[in-house]
């Protein structure tokens, strides 16, 4: 068996340098500023007659005041439910009639819409017409606001019966305190109940501004078309003139643990703290280290210790999310409630050992081969590339980000990882939340 593994590794190593790099060179990203002030990021691909576009703004849940929790998400949700004189039905019909797909998203930092359309003239034109109205002229019709409020309140009430939701909310509150990243993006029952149309209109006017917009495009269109589309989607939005700041995050000063009772058969466990920002100097050691610790699926330590060796959980992982300000590092699992204490002890021990010793040379080599060797998989569809373009545009990353990624991952050493984790992932400042366990069983 050892021989077999060794042979595979040699083949992979040789291929890493030979094949991965040319694959990247075939993704030429163009970027410019539209006359509207929007930043545009574009890749032309000619082999399928389709176009994917996203238009995003700094309009995520970080821009909610705590007493207006849910405002950002509710504004985003209402964009395509009445705009430019078209009703929600008109919008749905016009998009469906040309086989297009219109969606959108929201996270801590970003909010906006995305769409996918055929590039044949009539289909493209109709999709763009609707998208331009949705972005620039949302109507926020009062009856639609009330209907959607009722649906949202129902969904929040339902979600508050689920252990995952209770866990996520308590964890965010514990690690972010009063910072807006700690406010639930869908809002609270009492804040959503009070949101007014004026607040939605005002949020759109303040946050959906042309000179903070990022338009990402990939598909079968020319540069001239891309320029015209970006202008059309953002040209009539107001300008802000100033960039927008998210307040800094202060990580918790001490460790704390919270137990929430729940009748589920499993306990849900999460522990962590805010760690990774988009411009983090430790970005690559932390990302590669997390891959080894618990982000790399079966090949990672937490999965190995909790699931493969002990059968304690179906899902056991660590995750690391990057935002403008530090996003959460989290270790999570679910296990039948009597085992919660045992599983938590295993996770703590695994983390402590990783922090003390860092990864082995072999673990690091394997992780690099996965992250670098697997890079072509991350950019083998328009949809995946669009996500990268949006991140590059929004956070102002260099257009060479994808090429750099490969190089920077390869530069990471075991010492870099040990050093970065020791400084940044401090168990003495971590919050732990357990939903559904007998409090006596977890210490």
């Amino acid at each position, binding site marked *: *068996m050892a021989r*077999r593994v060794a042979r*595979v590794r040699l*083949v*992979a190593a040789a291929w890493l340098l030979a*094949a991965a790099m040319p694959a990247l060179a075939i993704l030429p990203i163009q970027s410019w500023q539209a006359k509207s002030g929007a930043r545009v990021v574009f890749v032309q*691909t*000619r*082999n*399928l*007659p*389709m176009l994917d576009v996203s238009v995003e703004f700094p309009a995520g849940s970080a821009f909610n005041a705590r007493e207006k929790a849910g405002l950002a998400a509710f504004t985003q949700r209402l964009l395509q439910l009445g705009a430019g004189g078209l009703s*929600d*039905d008109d919008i*749905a*019909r016009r*998009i*469906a009639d*040309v*086989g297009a797909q219109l969606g959108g998203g929201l996270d801590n930092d970003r909010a906006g819409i995305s769409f996918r359309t*055929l590039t044949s003239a009539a289909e493209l034109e109709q999709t763009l017409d609707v998208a331009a109205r949705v972005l620039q002229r949302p109507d926020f019709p009062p009856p639609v606001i009330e*209907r959607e409020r*009722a*649906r949202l*309140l*129902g*969904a929040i*009430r*339902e979600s*508050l*019966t689920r*252990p995952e939701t209770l866990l996520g909310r308590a964890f965010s509150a514990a690690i972010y305190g009063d910072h807006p990243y700690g406010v639930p993006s869908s809002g609270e029952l009492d804040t959503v109940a009070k949101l007014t149309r004026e607040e939605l209109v005002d949020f759109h006017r303040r946050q959906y501004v042309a000179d903070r917009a990022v338009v990402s495009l990939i598909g079968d269109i020319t540069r001239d078309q891309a320029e015209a589309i970006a202008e059309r989607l953002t040209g009539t939005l107001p300008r802000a003139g100033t960039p927008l700041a998210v307040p800094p995050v202060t990580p918790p000063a001490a460790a704390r643990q919270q137990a*929430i*009772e*729940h*009748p*589920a*058969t*499993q306990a849900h466990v999460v522990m962590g703290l805010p760690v990774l920002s988009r411009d983090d100097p430790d970005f690559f050691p932390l990302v590669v280290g997390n891959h080894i610790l618990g982000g790399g699926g*079966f*090949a990672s330590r937490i999965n190995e210790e909790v699931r*493969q*060796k*002990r*059968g304690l*959980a*179906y899902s056991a992982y660590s995750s690391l999310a990057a935002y403008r300000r530090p996003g959460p590092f989290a270790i999570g699992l*679910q296990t*039948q409630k*009597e*085992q919660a204490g045992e599983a938590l002890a295993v996770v703590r021990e695994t983390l402590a050992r990783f922090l003390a010793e860092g990864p082995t040379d072999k673990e690091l080599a394997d992780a690099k*081969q*996965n992250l670098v*060797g697997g890079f*072509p*998989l991350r*950019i*083998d*569809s*328009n949809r995946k590339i669009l996500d990268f373009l949006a991140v590059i545009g929004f956070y102002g990353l260099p257009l060479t980000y994808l090429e750099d990624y490969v190089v920077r991952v390869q530069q990471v050493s075991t010492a870099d990882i040990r050093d970065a984790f020791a400084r940044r992932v401090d168990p003495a400042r971590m919050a732990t939340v357990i939903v559904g366990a007998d409090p006596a069983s977890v210490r």
Partner: protein
Amino acid sequence: MPLKILLRAARYVAAAALLAAAAAVPAQTTEFALANGMRVIVREDHRAPTVVSMVWYRAGSMDEVNGSTGVAHVLEHMMFKGTKSVGPGEFSRMIAAAGGRDNAFTSRDHTGYFQQLEKSQLPLALRLEADRMANLVLTEEEFAREIKVVMEERRWRTEDRAQSLVHEQLMATAYTAHPYRHPVIGWMDDLRNMRFEDAKRWYDSWYAPNNAVLVVVGDVDPQAVRELAERYFGPIPPRALPERKPQVEPAQRGTKRVTVKAPAELPVTLLAWHVPVLRDPERDWEPYALEMLAAVLNGNPAARLNRTLVRERRIAIGVGASYDSTKRGPGLFLLSGTPAEGHTAAELEAALRGEIERVAREGVTEEELRRVKAQVVAGQVFQRDSIMAQAMEIGGLEMAGLSWRTIDRQLERLREVTAAQVQEVARRYFGDDGLTVATLDPQPLDRRKPAALPPGVRHGS
């Protein structure tokens, strides 16, 4: 992981081919068989230097027998536990170290294993996959650990999710004789009592080249794939497969109802009717009309259920309709919904049925049909953005006994469906006697009391 995708069939399984007129590069698909009966289907897609390789076994939970439900899925987990030459967990580690991702899925109809890789790594995937088709080592010790993982999966996926429980009960009620009545993950008590010999028997029965299809999609040369397939899978001898009994579901003779009480806030109503599925892509017409009916009801944001029940009448906060024409067993047409505050599950049930009755009475408009067909045409272009989606489509059809070669024809047939045909299936299949209704009766969350165990059952195993 192996993160089982409990395959909820894609709505447009049939609509997935490429439209030669719309796509710039037509897809080249090649099929051949090895001497041992294993079939290989290769779709070339040269857009990126990547490949997805899938081995599909025509053995899913519908092939299980009472007392051993869940064994198809348990074996899927055990397939990562090593062979004579690869240690436990090494399969995934080797794929990861080659820059790849791997996983597997079990459904009622089949079990599938896949690897996504840079194209030069395809031989590794095929070598490892062939190895575990023939040389799996099942030990009592690995089994004892993994069955605990599977029980945790069932707790996570089903036991603690009210919506999953009500769906499980819908299936268990709608079918009396057909094994579709059992959940893919298995009943908890069957998992508790499963032995390593059950998994071994399953492997010995079904994991043979003559019960498998290899699907490779990506930047590959079919001739090279053929040589690799012959080298790695060719030497594995075929085996006689167990007899598959038809287990035909007897005709239902009246509405069946089931209520599930579980911690939740909002009720859920699920309605299911027995309907035909696609057996002969050329002669059948009803499955195409049923696909169109599901799409007119819920195939896009402008579709009927959302428009009338959520937006206009506001008696639901969410609705759904689904129908999968591509499966080995009998078909179901499902409607679902969550009532809005101030409305009951019974009201929503009546309203959902009212929408079917309206189609039966008044038909659908040409405009609605045109809209749904526009989705079909665009959907086949969009699907080509993903080699994974293409491989899933090809494999799913083959497992249901439908050739990938019929994809284009199925698409044409879909586009030929008339409003009269949609009306006809709405009239024909949605009476009271073939209906099953499952309702979630939400219970308050009593935080102090853990869910009771059935009597005589010990926790864990």
